[in-house]
């Protein structure tokens, strides 16, 4: 593996080099047996996982992940508890956290980055921290060796997408549609368009999420993209209290569709 890349980007590039498509499931930290579910996702063939640190006001999330946030917060989860648990977890694939900027800001940006690094967390995604505001965080994250994954949306100009691709680490997270997270009946046409625009301008792995809810949709978007992020569909299983085995089963279905 090239030393130029962090563990997340290295893993995703390796999958691509081997001719495969990357699968990154998202789970909400603190929800049910989330640690068991992470292990099940890894066993079922995930290339990496994103773990949500719950926030009271998740504006980029639809009803399923909102509900997951509310339940996890009601159960008393804290940002440090999520990170500590990740530090004890050994699932053999890179882990990233996904949370909102105020969680990191309140924790202290440098401290947040260094605790992530100490707990072996490879990456962070902060969906309400756009490029123009990201400076203080990326400085702290870079110093600690944490990869900052930036989102790219269909509304951005090519010029803007170029700047996002240049600054992102790990992968570039293409937002599949105009809207918040959640499962839709069909893959939006914008998902494939987004993947195509990003693929044209960067060598960084291009993963698409938001509105990628079924194995078939993942397969469709991965005709162009290097991989898919799958959140609400997985979290739905956890909310339904189906346990780690059900999460593993679903991740396995996605894996087979992408292979």
């Amino acid at each position, binding site marked *: 593996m090239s030393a130029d890349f962090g563990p997340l980007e290295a893993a995703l590039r390796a999958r691509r080099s081997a001719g495969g498509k990357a699968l990154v499931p998202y789970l909400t930290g603190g929800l049910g047996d989330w640690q068991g579910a992470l292990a099940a996702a890894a066993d079922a063939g995930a290339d990496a996982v994103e773990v949500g640190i719950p926030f009271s006001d998740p504006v980029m999330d639809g009803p399923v992940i909102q509900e997951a946030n509310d339940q996890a917060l009601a159960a008393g989860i804290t940002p*440090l508890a999520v990170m500590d648990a990740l530090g004890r977890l050994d699932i053999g694939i890179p882990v990233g956290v996904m949370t909102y900027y105020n969680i990191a800001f309140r924790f202290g940006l440098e401290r947040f980055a260094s605790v992530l690094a100490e707990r072996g967390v490879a990456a962070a995604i902060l969906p309400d921290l756009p490029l123009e505001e990201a400076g203080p965080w990326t400085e702290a994250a870079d110093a600690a060796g944490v990869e900052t994954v930036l989102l790219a949306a269909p509304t951005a100009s090519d010029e803007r997408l170029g700047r996002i691709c240049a600054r992102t680490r790990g992968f570039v997270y293409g937002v599949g549609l105009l809207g918040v997270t959640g499962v839709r009946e069909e893959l939006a046409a914008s998902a494939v368009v987004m993947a195509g625009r990003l693929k044209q301008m960067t060598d960084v792995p291009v993963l698409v999420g938001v509105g990628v809810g079924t194995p078939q949709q993942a397969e469709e978007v991965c005709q162009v993209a290097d991989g898919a992020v799958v959140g609400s569909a997985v979290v739905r299983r956890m909310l339904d209290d189906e346990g780690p085995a059900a999460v593993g089963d679903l991740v396995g279905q996605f894996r087979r569709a992408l292979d």
Partner: protein
Amino acid sequence: MAEPVDGRFGDFGGRFVPETLVPACEELEAAFRSAWADEDFRGELDQLLADYAGRPSPLTECHRLSEELGLRLLLKREDLNHTGSHKINNVLGQALLAVRMGKTRLVAETGAGQHGVATATAAALLGLECVVYMGEVDIQRQALNVFRMQLLGAEVRSAVSGSRTLKDAINEAMRDWVATVESSHYCLGSVMGPHPYPWMVRELHRVIGDEAREQCQELLGRDPDVVTACVGGGSNAIGIFSGFVDGDAALVGVEPAGGAAIGRGVPGVVHGSKSFLMQDEHGQVLEAESISAGLDYPGIGPEHSHLAAIGRARYESVTDDEVVAAFELLSRTEGIIPALEPAHALAWVSRARQELAGQSVLLNLSGRGDKDVDQMMDRLGER
């Protein structure tokens, strides 16, 4: 008041939004800047403010209450505007801007319902589609305003997540905007949110302060000693402060004790900007709780945080009981039933009467109390 630098007022403000919305915020900033410099746009807005909203709003000197309090109390009568509050100033401007930008749909959040009613009104006037998000709890305590919005042709959608009040209605409105950004304008109701909103909404409300300063010059021959207003997000307060910030008048914002972002908060980032915010040690936003749905907001506009940080304005807080007493006091002494929101400012004036003895105090009476009469009937009727 100056324009923010890079979208910031000192350390506060910014544009902390999902990537999808960044181009929309940039487009809005450019569109507002161009409209605000365009005499035709300004003329059209001024005409609507005069012929439709009823501006200028009067300045009323409270003779009986002044005597009782031992000071000279002046009210800027935003309660007399069409739709019953200052909110109309902002929405007429934003709705005209939306039309200028080719948008066909307005999305708004509302707490007490005043901003929702104002937005629904502007949408009806200009032939725009309108969706208003309102917390489930607020829908119950402001049923009259819900029906008003529906009469005006707006769709009211219930925000059922989190605390089910104003902050959750804002979350829902932002989620809607993320999905509909190509056709919709988010008509934000206060001086909060991502840049350019805190600046744009202040500019649209500065008419309050500009008029009031002229009216005070006429009545007093100078600025008042104190200018005060209630603060939730802080739009009516910024509006009146903006007329006096370059002078010597003391500026006092009054927050509800249960929603005191500056009184009880620390800097944080939510709803697009960095500002003082009521939050727990982990960064989870706390639920504001006060008698007034319109001030039930755990944050505050970033320019208020800046004015507090540099010491140009100070922020006090009052309890629900003090607010109810002030609500009754103004009703009985002056024949003006205020909304519960500006009753907060009066509650502070009443409490601070000794400190304010002999001074001239300008209070922004930001809304009328019709919407609160039911709630007060329940609370006071039992006596």
